[in-house]
């Protein structure tokens, strides 16, 4: 702790513009050795741009950066790493097909030495409590283990400054705690300077020493973390006084407050079952993605599926999107068995879907907004008939109006829309199809607070109108907020189920990590 006052990185008046949009404006930021600094802000507040500047992926338009007291220019990631700056990425930095040690060494500039690399992985693992088999194929690891590999990859060069970009999004609450312990070790024993980038208030409060809050590209507040309470942090982040409950609380990652939210009375027992998945089994790439999943969704209720990413949730969504056939079990919609893996059958049966990645099965980027709003109509019915463009345009105009979609018009290319508006197009199309079931898979990923609130509102409206909603989300907060019933998926099974009123974060967290009450008892 002797180095507490050593400033590792000092950013002054940093500005970055993209065309007419200013991503970062006059930002000051100090990272100190021996301390964890939180960078808090909602999606698009400028956090990632700021961090990309620090690791050399983006060049600033103005401002200075000092590292350990020397003024520097960070032209590329290699320069950043030679300055002792490392980053643990949120996604995309590991290659599934390669082994752990190969992934750790990927991007290194030195000669490849398998023996030394394996030893390095083991050594770093021991030092920080991040045990992982250096010869394992990364594709076979769980999300938590993969993140260990990410961290080892970052720490391999012993950087003095480490940036963590939304590290808990793929972890169970317990794994997150462990991660924060690792951070503490790195900070206190080795005097590293750590930046923790997050949009979750309680995480920032729990794990950091100091905090900088960003909003719309500017620093709105900063100081020692204990100076703030949740309310003041939330207000700084969102820019208006917020009631820390409901949508907003979920959007800023406050789980504890959510537990206290009163649950509306529901009498769903009496309502008909609109979606019944029975003993669903699915094999993919030689592994069992779904291993006997069984659950029901009733009309008018929201069922949330919690779980760490990669435990079969996206496979379940793919089945309900008619993308893959089940290897066993069945899906019934409104009492009728729907064949799986057959083009369009789920949609025809009344299953609407907001997919995890809207660019995947949610839209056709190269087509117009109007065409995207009409995908369902285009894909069904006789093929040899003329395309009624004016009718398509008319109905598109109606939906654009109704859902407040910001676009150049029905004929604008879908790809010209911003992320939030693309998501609105998807939502408009799916809800206007008058579905019986709405599957929302990570519906708020990458959206900012306003868009998240809009999404929550629409999901609730759908449920109120009698649609059975299946909400699949990694964001426990979102599930706690919206769901009437909560299921937890682990390794392709539903291993826990509870009513919202009985929801207990501790228990859900354990279930997400695969610990059932039976196994705790043993």
């Amino acid at each position, binding site marked *: 702790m002797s180095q507490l006052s050593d400033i590792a990185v000092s950013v002054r008046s940093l500005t970055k513009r993209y065309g007419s949009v200013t991503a970062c404006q006059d930002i000051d930021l100090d990272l100190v050795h021996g301390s964890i600094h939180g960078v808090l802000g909602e999606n698009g507040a400028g956090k990632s741009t700021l961090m990309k500047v620090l690791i050399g992926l983006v060049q600033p338009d103005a401002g200075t950066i000092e590292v350990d007291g020397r003024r520097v220019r960070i032209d*590329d*990631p*290699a320069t950043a*790493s030679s300055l002792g700056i490392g980053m643990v*990425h949120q996604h*995309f*930095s*590991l*290659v*599934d*097909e*390669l082994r752990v040690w*190969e992934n750790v*060494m*990927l*991007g*290194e*500039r*030195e*000669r*490849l030495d398998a023996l030394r690399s394996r030893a390095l992985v083991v050594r770093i693992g021991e030092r920080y409590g991040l045990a992982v088999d250096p010869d394992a194929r990364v594709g076979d690891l769980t999300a938590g283990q993969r993140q260990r590999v990410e961290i080892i*990859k970052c720490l391999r060069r012993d950087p003095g400054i480490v940036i963590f970009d939304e590290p808990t999004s793929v972890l169970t609450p317990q794994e997150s705690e462990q991660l924060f312990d690792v951070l503490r070790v790195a900070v206190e024993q080795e005097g590293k300077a750590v930046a923790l980038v997050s949009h979750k208030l309680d995480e920032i409060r729990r794990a950091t020493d100091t905090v900088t809050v960003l909003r719309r590209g500017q620093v709105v507040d900063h100081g020692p973390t204990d100076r703030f309470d949740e309310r003041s942090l939330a207000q700084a982040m969102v820019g208006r006084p917020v009631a820390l409950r409901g949508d907003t609380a979920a959007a800023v990652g406050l789980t504890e407050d959510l537990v206290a939210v009163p649950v509306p009375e529901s009498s769903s027992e009496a309502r008909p079952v609109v979606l019944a998945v029975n003993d669903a089994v699915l094999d993919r790439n030689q592994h069992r993605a779904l291993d006997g999943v069984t659950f029901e969704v009733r009309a008018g209720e929201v069922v949330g599926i919690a779980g760490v990413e990669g435990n079969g949730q996206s496979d379940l969504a793919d089945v309900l999107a008619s993308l893959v056939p089940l290897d066993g079990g069945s899906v019934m919609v409104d009492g009728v068995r729907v064949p799986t893996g057959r083009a369009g059958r789920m949609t025809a049966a009344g299953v609407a879907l907001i997919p995890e990645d809207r*660019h995947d099965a949610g839209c056709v980027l190269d087509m117009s907004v109007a065409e995207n709003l009409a995908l369902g109509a285009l894909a069904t019915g006789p093929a040899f008939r003329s395309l009624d463009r004016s009718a398509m345009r008319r109905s598109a105009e109606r939906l654009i109006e109704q859902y407040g979609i910001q676009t150049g018009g029905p004929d604008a290319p879908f790809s010209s829309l911003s992320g939030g508006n693309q998501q609105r197009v998807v939502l408009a199309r799916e809800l206007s199809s008058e579905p019986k079931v709405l599957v929302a898979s990570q519906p708020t990923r990458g959206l900012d607070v306003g868009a998240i609130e809009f999404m929550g509102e629409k999901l609730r409206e759908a449920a109120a109108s009698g649609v059975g909603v299946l909400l699949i989300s990694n964001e426990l907060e979102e599930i706690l907020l919206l769901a009437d019933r909560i299921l937890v998926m682990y390794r392709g099974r539903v291993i826990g189920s509870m009513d919202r009123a009985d929801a207990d974060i501790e228990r859900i967290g354990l279930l997400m990590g695969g610990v059932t009450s039976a196994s705790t008892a043993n």
Partner: protein
Amino acid sequence: MSELLDAIGTLAGSDALYTSAFQLTVLLVFAASGEWVAEKAGTLNISIEGMLLAGAFGSVVGHEWTGSAIVGLVVAAWAGVSVASIQANLSHRLTANQFVVGLALNVLVLGLAAFFANSFDIGPATAAVVRIPVLQDLPLVGTALFARPWPAYLVYPLVPALWWLVYRTRWGLEARSVGEDPQAADVSGIDVNERRRQAIYVTGLTCGIGGAFLVLAQVGSFQTSIVNGRGFVALAAVIFGGWTLRGTILGCGIFGFLEALAFAIPANGYSVDPVILSSTRYVVALLAVLIFATRVRQPRALAQPFVRGLT
């Protein structure tokens, strides 16, 4: 059919068959092992046919200038790499469709080779036979393996060298990563398109040498139809091999042996319809692709262009 089997039975005892099979296999190995490197890095390189032809033509030109087969080989390698550089830069700098570029290059090389071959007189070109004592006297395979024109021996160091390059060097690790997951490689600080271009250069180099081998060690002179789809058979061999080097070489051996049979059977006076024989190679390649297609895994980003931010 029984006549065909008889013919194969008799031929199996003749070393001429093995010699011919070896020659044809070596050509495919030169082409397919280089193609394997490009595919590991994510390019399905259709211009392999043009690279082979460029190499073949380069070797006769080099030989014509200097009378030296070594110069011929060097010019051939250069020609192969030149074709590769066009493919690489158009498809992995400008992100033009790799298939379109490849097809156009095949047409271009064929056109250029035919144009020059018709415009200038180019004589025969051969490389000296190097005999390895004792080993060349082995029964059946002695001549086939150990009394070859010298370019044939280049294949022995080439294959382990490529294996080492891909699996044991940093470059190879990076090349494999851009073939599997270019986004992850990019985030790790690797220039994805640069690695892909370099992998195509490797293909150009081996195909250039392969083309030289075809002229100097096998045919002895240049004709525009000298390659005749063998580049595409090499493509099939990579798929047959399930994107492993060992499997690819095995595929080359099988295709090479079948082609040798196709040549040998009518030459030995058996009345099997030569049409059946000359299409065997392609039919087998087709069947091989069919049988092995779903069992093995291809590099996940094969034939997918990489532009940063475009997933």
